[in-house]
């Protein structure tokens, strides 16, 4: 039973075939799963944000699974992830924090199998059509440089004043043409979440 009142869910899959004229094979792919929910605390200050933390846990599972399904991969094939939220004008920035930080990560990590690394995040207040650049990193080793990236997400009719837009992005690859050095995915141990 989901307690979040969801108005809509959108998934986007981006597949890159060419970058600056060079063929990318296999294609690099990333998927965003985005939910637009009612903000139960819009319009007034609430000291206790437990209600939003519960919603964060629900959406970690729902959106994590949707993003993996949209890529059509096994959870173990997910390589990168990120999360973000845009709070409509009658809310406060802390509402995004309550959804994203305490409990969303656990079920997301189940959806992508493992996930030793911190889930990079971004948040802001915004209106209809506001774009959010969701930061991305390797799911098991934050220092893997080829997977540093961001995906722009945007829904033209959200968030309304009393809504929150919550996004999870999952990738099955890094950037299309990585060549700036740093730790490579094949050298990552994936134990401490960093290397």
């Amino acid at each position, binding site marked *: 039973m989901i307690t979040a009142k969801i*108005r809509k869910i959108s998934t986007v*899959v981006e*597949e890159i075939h*060419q970058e600056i004229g060079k063929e990318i094979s296999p294609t690099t792919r990333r998927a965003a799963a985005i939910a637009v929910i009612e903000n139960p605390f819009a319009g007034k200050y609430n000291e206790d944000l437990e209600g939003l933390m519960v919603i964060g846990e629900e959406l970690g599972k729902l959106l994590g699974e949707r993003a993996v399904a949209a890529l059509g991969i096994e959870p173990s094939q997910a390589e990168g992830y990120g999360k973000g939220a845009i709070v409509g004008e009658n809310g406060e920035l802390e509402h995004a924090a309550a959804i994203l930080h305490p409990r969303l990560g656990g079920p997301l990590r189940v959806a992508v199998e493992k996930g030793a690394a911190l889930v990079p995040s971004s948040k802001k207040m915004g209106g209809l059509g506001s774009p959010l650049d969701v930061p991305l990193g390797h799911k098991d080793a934050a220092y893997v440089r080829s997977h540093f990236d961001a995906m722009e997400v945007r829904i*033209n009719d959200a968030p309304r004043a009393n809504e929150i837009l919550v996004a999870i992005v999952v990738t099955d690859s890094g950037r299309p043409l990585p060549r700036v050095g740093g730790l490579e995915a094949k050298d990552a141990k994936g134990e401490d979440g960093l290397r």
Partner: protein
Amino acid sequence: MPEVIVRKTIVSVEDIFHEGGPVSQKPHRRGAIAAVIHNPYAGRYVEEITPFIEDLKPLGLKMAQDLIAAMGAKPSQIEGYGKGAIVGSGGELEHGALWHAPGGYSMREVVENSKAIVASTKKVGAVGSRLDVPVTHANASYVRSHFDSIEVGINDAPRADEMLVILVMTTGSRIHSRSGGMLASEIKGEDGLK
């Protein structure tokens, strides 16, 4: 014969549960697919551009099939459709018109009941431009409950020598449709209009 070179594709699927009114058990599903392709005529005026229509047909068909698959739908469940194109700054509006036949007829080949003309929009635009792609009922253009549009765009396309070609589909009426007019249940399905 120009080759169709695809730089990237995006597929998006939207499930709408409510818009301030009663929450629907079955969400209204809307899907869009866009391909960023090289514009073989960018940068100069080319008189004879129609050969590219034929070249685009396999892409159109694949996009129509991929979109239905991404929506988890059967071809018989698609009730609305539309198409569009954004031409990068090195091209001309007429290049977008090349998408009419391959975009429209590919959907009509795949969508089961599709007697209606496929509504469309097109424009010349910069990287990140967004296009409101019109949606009408696939079998009868006058069905008011299915008039809609889906906003589509990609933050890094179209570049000057590219075009964005787009197909959209829906599985039903607007979520709180109640503005009268012809209903889907009243379709005769003979002329594509009513």
